């Protein structure tokens, strides 16, 4: 059974190879090849899942050793895959949601002449992400990690004829590099500390930690912080969040793939996978929760102000990933819920993005929500699926988001002490803002009066429902959005499934679970009510009002780019300029001064070289005289 693991990765990788090298003759069938291979990968995943379910909870770890990658004395890197409950969860999410997005892309990209290439990139993305979650050591994980970075770059910049898309791709790639640097430093630290970076020896299991137990807390904190930096890059957490909004320049299925199934989940995976390192580094854990909490609010606030439907959803993703990172930072109390929220979020966020793509598809690629309005009549299927995703993400009771988010809030309170109160409060506040901005998106898009106008060429958009290949994935994802949370939570199924890998502790919450649920409901209602009061009861202006200072800041992504520009770009420019100045004056001064003085000295010295043998003879004779004098002096002394 282990041998299937490699096929999981091989299928999409084969697809990428075939599609990217096959040339134009595959244009007609390329999208089907890509979709089928993604589905094949999902089928393999399902078979393996069934196999795992048939085993005892303790035996559900499959290891497949392919070959030794770097066989150097004292440095052993293997190509080995590890399939346990954690990676299995990711495999199913990635291949399942990924396959649906493939299917959706067939319709969405129908009119794009580079569709075959697009599917090649999608397959490459899946393969890299599967490699990331299946790797049995950090070095192989790093390969997948970089593969994801590459694929995201290619996909975000897929419409590279648009300068904004090309810039966004570069931005995503560069910001990710910062995180990648963190991961590589973490791997190096690990190697110098432990002498290996395989999961088994380093991490051990949650009951019996591996080599990490012997390391000093300072070292572990360093490694953990570097891993966190890596996670921040991939998962768009503060301070490396700036690429996510711009990444919306890619085709909508790419956004769905990045936000739901791949890429941004990689950071959460990394933290949860390295749980044993974080467990032993409480300081790093605290930083993780802080990063999560800050990003949670950051994304939510940005999401409130955006009029671009995809950017609003991007802010939402940032916020929801913030929840996951917050949960992951809580330690064993939160790991399971982080992953659970990740999975449910994968369903409803994919559904929301596909819905947004469907709306854009019907609206001539218009993304400004202020120019939508009343679309529920024109796109009933999209409206229903998007609405279910909306209800799930705000945590409507009984839907997926309710279960997973509620658990995270509960776990945040269970952290205990002042931290617990603060984190719980932040999570609750985030829930309220989530309710507000998602309601806003919903109301502006599907309710109210129609606000669209003819474009510059006089074509009035004709909103229409999308083709079957697009609606079917949305319907499937809507089912997931509705039922996944409940399915996981009844009888704590998900907890029992994942506990052998991540471990779990309940913590003692200062507030009861019921209180938390009730509080969540209250803030949910408040958020929805405010949004309704603002956007449901009165017409939405087509041109955005000036708004408050906070609104304007949030529209500019809370000044993240300005911050980066002032601190990093300007700072870098100043640093460079001062270094250039130092180089020109000090370094060049020394060098040129030396050269000039040597040159000047030589110019004088060369007059001694007049070519006359007699002059040289004088020098020789004088030298001899000096030698005689020296000899006499030495004898006298």
């Amino acid at each position, binding site marked *: 059974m282990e041998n299937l693991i490699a096929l999981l990765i091989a299928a999409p990788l084969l697809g990428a190879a075939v599609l990217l090298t096959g040339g134009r003759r595959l244009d007609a069938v390329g999208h089907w090849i890509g979709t089928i291979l993604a589905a094949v990968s999902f089928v393999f995943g399902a078979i393996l899942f069934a196999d795992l379910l048939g085993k005892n909870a303790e035996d559900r770890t499959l290891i497949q050793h392919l070959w030794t990658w770097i066989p150097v004395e004292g440095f052993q890197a293997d190509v080995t895959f590890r399939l346990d409950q954690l990676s299995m969860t990711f495999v199913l999410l990635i291949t399942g949601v990924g396959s649906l997005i493939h299917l959706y892309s067939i319709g969405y990209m129908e009119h794009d002449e580079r569709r075959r290439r697009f599917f090649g990139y999608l397959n490459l993305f899946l393969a890299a992400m599967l490699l990331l979650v299946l790797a049995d050591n950090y070095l192989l994980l790093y390969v997948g990690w970089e593969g994801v970075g590459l694929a995201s770059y290619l996909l975000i910049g897929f419409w590279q004829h648009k300068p904004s898309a090309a810039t966004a791709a570069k931005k995503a790639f560069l910001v990710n590099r910062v995180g990648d640097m963190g991961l590589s430093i973490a791997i190096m630290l690990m190697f110098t500390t432990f002498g290996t970076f395989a999961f088994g020896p380093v991490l051990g299991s949650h009951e019996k930690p591996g080599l990490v137990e012997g390391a000093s807390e300072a070292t572990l904190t360093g490694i953990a912080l570097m891993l966190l930096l890596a996670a921040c890059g991939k998962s768009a957490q503060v301070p490396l969040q700036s690429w996510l909004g711009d990444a919306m320049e890619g085709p909508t299925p790419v956004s769905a793939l990045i936000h739901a199934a791949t890429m941004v989940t990689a950071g959460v995976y990394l933290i949860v996978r390295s749980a044993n390192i974080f467990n032993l580094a409480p300081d790093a854990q605290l930083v993780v929760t802080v990063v999560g909490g800050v990003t949670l609010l950051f994304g939510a606030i940005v999401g409130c102000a955006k009029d671009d439907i995809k950017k609003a959803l991007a802010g939402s993703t940032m916020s929801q990933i913030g929840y996951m990172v917050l949960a992951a930072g809580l330690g064993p109390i939160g790991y399971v819920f982080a992953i659970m929220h990740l999975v449910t979020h994968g369903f409803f966020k994919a559904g929301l993005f596909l819905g947004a793509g469907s709306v854009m598809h019907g609206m001539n690629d218009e993304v400004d929500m202020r120019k939508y309005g009343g679309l529920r009549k024109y796109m009933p299927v999209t409206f229903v699926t998007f609405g279910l995703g909306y209800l799930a993400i705000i945590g409507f009771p009984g839907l997926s988001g309710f279960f997973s988010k509620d658990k995270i809030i509960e776990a945040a309170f269970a952290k205990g002490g002042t931290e617990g109160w603060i984190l719980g409060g932040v999570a609750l506040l985030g829930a309220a803002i989530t309710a507000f901005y998602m309601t806003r998106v919903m109301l502006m898009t599907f309710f109210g009066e129609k606000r669209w106008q003819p474009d510059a060429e006089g074509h009035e958009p004709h909103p229409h429902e999308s083709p079957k290949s697009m609606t079917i994935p949305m319907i499937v994802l809507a089912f997931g959005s509705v039922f996944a949370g409940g399915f996981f939570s009844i009888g704590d199924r998900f907890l029992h499934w994942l506990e052998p890998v991540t471990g779990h502790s309940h913590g003692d919450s200062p507030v009861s679970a019921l209180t938390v649920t009730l509080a969540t409901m209250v803030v949910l209602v408040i958020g929805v009510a405010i949004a309704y009061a603002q956007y449901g009861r009165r017409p939405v202006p087509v041109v955005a009002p000036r708004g408050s200072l906070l609104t304007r800041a949030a529209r500019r992504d809370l000044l993240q780019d300005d911050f980066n520009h002032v601190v990093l770009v300007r700072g870098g420019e100043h640093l460079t300029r001062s270094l250039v100045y130092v180089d020109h004056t000090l370094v060049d001064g020394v060098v040129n001064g030396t050269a000039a003085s040597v040159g000047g000295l030589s110019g004088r010295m060369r007059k001694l070289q007049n070519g006359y043998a*007699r002059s040289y003879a004088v020098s020789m*004779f004088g030298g001899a*005289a000096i030698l*005689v004098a020296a000899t*006499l002096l030495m004898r006298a002394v």
Partner: protein
Amino acid sequence: MTAPLQLAATTTLAAGTSTGEAFQFWILGTVAVIGALCTVFMKKAVHSALCLAGTMIILAVFYLANGAYFLGVVQIVVYTGAIMMLFLFVVMLVGVTAADSLKETIKGQRWLALVCGLGFGILLFAGIGNASLNEFNGLTQANSGGNVEGLATLIFTKYVFAFEITGALLITAAVGAMVLTHRERTERALTQREMAEKRVRDGKHLPPLPAPGVYARHNAVDIAGLLPDGTPSELTVSKMLRQRGQIRDVSAEALNDLKALEQRAEERLDRTEIEPATFKREASK
């Protein structure tokens, strides 16, 4: 000549020196220094060479006085006799009459040379003065078996390798000198007949070249002969002298000399001028 000197010296070769030797030293030493200074300051190379030869002979006498009989003789025979003759050959080859200008052309060279020379000399004198070299062992014992025999013993025992290597050096030097001065002939030498034919073909100067001037007051080959109109012809002088630029342009000078001579003869003989106009006319040409 060496035998009596040797006898005289043997008696004085003890630790000290006799009054006679002191007398000889001060007289001959002065002459040697004067000779050395003349070597340096004479304008003509041939004079320098002669002065050097004198100094060397005096040095040979000093060698003999110091008990180095063999060296003294070698100094005279080899150095003064052979090497100085070689110098003279070269001086002749380069031009015996050429006088050097003693005017210094390199700025500061003379001052530097004087300062260096004085400083070096003072230092040497100070060194010798400091060395407390008052004890003389004398060569009586070393020369007891005969000076030449003693030298021979040392050369062929202790210094035999140096001696052999010196021989190799001499051979090398001889070969080197030949290589330096040798010129390879790249084509067959023309025979006399071929040269004559070539001269006819080129159409220039078929008969032998004219003889040089005939004034026997000088080394007459360097004086150009006069053509019938009284102008000197360079063709009459050897090509080598022409190249060296050693032709005397004596036409005017010679005529004036001749004129002066004739004037003196007239005065003595109380005779009137003979055809003075013609000479003047030719001289003015």
